[in-house]
């Protein structure tokens, strides 16, 4: 009796009329297009809207496509370099904003590190385009380095957030205890801070990797001729006409992203 009364007092969003149907509708809207994309990637025919039977044909076509191979490898190279350097820098930034005595401007630095999350990507892209154009004219260098640099820059906040969260959740007295037990600051970092921080670092790296892998806007503006990544290549293909090959590539990319994001959640909760 009393239990029922207590329950009635609570605001239960799940008990609202239409809650379930709204929730189901949202999930359908979110995932139906993606489901369609994945399903049609297994279509045997060339038509994107007409089901002609199950086949792995388009995966095979995409796999054999030398251009796809080339841009995929390029994407992975950029994502690897960018996520590595972004994670390294983000780790240092996180240590600098949590493992020091409070100093003036620490909040400002925190805001500045996270600013790329707020600045519209197109603005960053245009800014980098102009900035790199100047450097390209001066140095004459047109290599992949610009893309790596740009990706590193916008990946930093994504790597920073999980690492910082991990550091803030870490008991500072563990580091004090290590120092008390004759560990120098460097040994304290190596034996205590880093091992405990490691899941956060990996999670940050994976998030950065996925973000870099999926980026279109900044890459499109910064890349030189012949430096297409997988997403910009797909964008280019779509302009010419849609084939289920793009579906297959998208599905594969989705698979990689899901895998990495799942790992991210597993590591974050460890």
């Amino acid at each position, binding site marked *: 009796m009393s239990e029922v009364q207590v329950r009635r007092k609570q605001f239960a969003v799940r008990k609202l009329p239409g809650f379930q149907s709204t929730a189901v509708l949202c999930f359908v809207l979110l995932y139906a297009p993606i489901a369609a994309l994945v399903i049609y990637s297994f279509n045997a025919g060339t038509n994107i809207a007409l089901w002609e039977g199950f086949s792995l044909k388009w995966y095979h076509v995409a796999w054999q496509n030398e251009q796809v191979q080339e841009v995929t490898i390029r994407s992975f190279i950029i994502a690897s370099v960018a996520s590595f350097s972004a994670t390294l820098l983000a780790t240092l930034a996180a240590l600098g904003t949590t493992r020091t005595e409070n100093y003036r401007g620490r909040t400002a630095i925190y805001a500045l590190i996270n600013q790329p999350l707020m600045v519209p990507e197109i603005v960053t892209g245009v800014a980098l385009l102009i900035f790199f154009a100047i450097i390209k004219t001066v140095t004459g260098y047109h290599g992949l380095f610009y893309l790596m640099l740009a990706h590193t820059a916008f990946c930093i906040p994504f790597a920073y957030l999980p690492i910082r969260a991990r550091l803030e959740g870490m008991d500072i007295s563990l580091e004090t205890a*290590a120092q008390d*037990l004759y560990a120098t600051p460097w040994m304290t970092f190596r034996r205590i801070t880093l091992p405990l921080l490691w899941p956060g670092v990996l999670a940050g790296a994976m998030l950065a990797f996925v973000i870099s892998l999926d980026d279109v806007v900044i890459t499109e503006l910064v890349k030189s001729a012949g430096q297409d990544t997988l997403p910009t290549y797909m964008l280019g293909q779509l302009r010419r006409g849609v084939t289920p090959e793009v579906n297959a590539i998208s599905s594969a990319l989705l698979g990689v992203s899901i895998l990495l994001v799942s790992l991210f959640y597993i590591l974050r909760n460890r």
Partner: protein
Amino acid sequence: MLQASSTRQIAVTVNAITKIFGEGDNSVVALEDVNLEIKENEFFTLLGPSGCGKTTLLRLIAGFEHPTSGNILLYDQDITFLPPYQRPVNTVFQNYALFPHMTVRQNVSFGLEMLGRAKSEIKETVDSVLNLVRMEELANRRTSEISGGQQQRVALARALAPRPKVLLLDESLSALDYKLRQDMQLELKRLQHETGITFIFVTHDQEEALTMSDRLAVMDEGRVLQVGGPSEIYNYPKERFVAEFIGDSNFLEADVTSVNERLVRIQFYTGKEFEVPAFRDMRVGAHVTVAVRPEQVTLSNSLDAATFTGVIENMVYLGTHTHYIIKLSNGSEFTAHIQNLRGHDRQFEIGGAVGIALDPATIQVLKD
């Protein structure tokens, strides 16, 4: 035992330590001109309410903080500004601070590893320390897989393994439940005896401080009020705070009527006079406060010979003792704890008149 202690070497000297946190208007004085000498192989306790500066003093000795002025000596070495990893001093933290990514054995080995000891020596020492705290069977467990009491023992083993010259314990028993705490109190005394290491123990629990310490320092508001053995602190509190914080006390006003070389004569409002030892300059006519422990008075039905008379307002029977709350004839309250003797119960009743007799030896004159 007592004689030996007086000839012991001084292990830790705290010399005119002042610690101020913050600057300007926001500054807080955590410690003010603290002086202490802690002897070798002593169980020394810093006792005081929270915020009295006892933990700050411990952190200064450990090296986690540095004093604003003054210095700290470990034997003859000035360690005031040495980093914590260069001091042969280890700490048992309040929350234990065990490394969660290591096993019990790895935790206990850590200090010795950092000191660069040989593998065989580390294993031998760790085995003996784990044996000392009775944790050898759980050596390969993760620290998250053992109970609070076991974690406490691992924290102790970890701090003891490098054989520090001084072991610091920061409210180390307060997280344990009552029974476990009593076991650990005995265990700590045993460990201190067996290892011969100087223990500095921080607590706000007066009972714990009295049972465990060889000597203790009572602190309040960043100052050390009194240092002494448990019975000395209990029986001869110099200040009202000490008498109040440790045990129960009755505080009574008295006037000085005559002063001898060593003795002063004081008079209570009832006209009764007592001769008590003078421990400071006192003038005739001065006003003093004295402390009397509730268990050190006698109650009687004969009112004429009594020091004070009053009416029993309340009584609580506690088995070994009965606590009496008595309203004195001047209106103030007086507490008496009287031991119960078989055949003598029901001597006094609530609302009945009662006489309180004091023994001059139990009267402690306090500083203002």
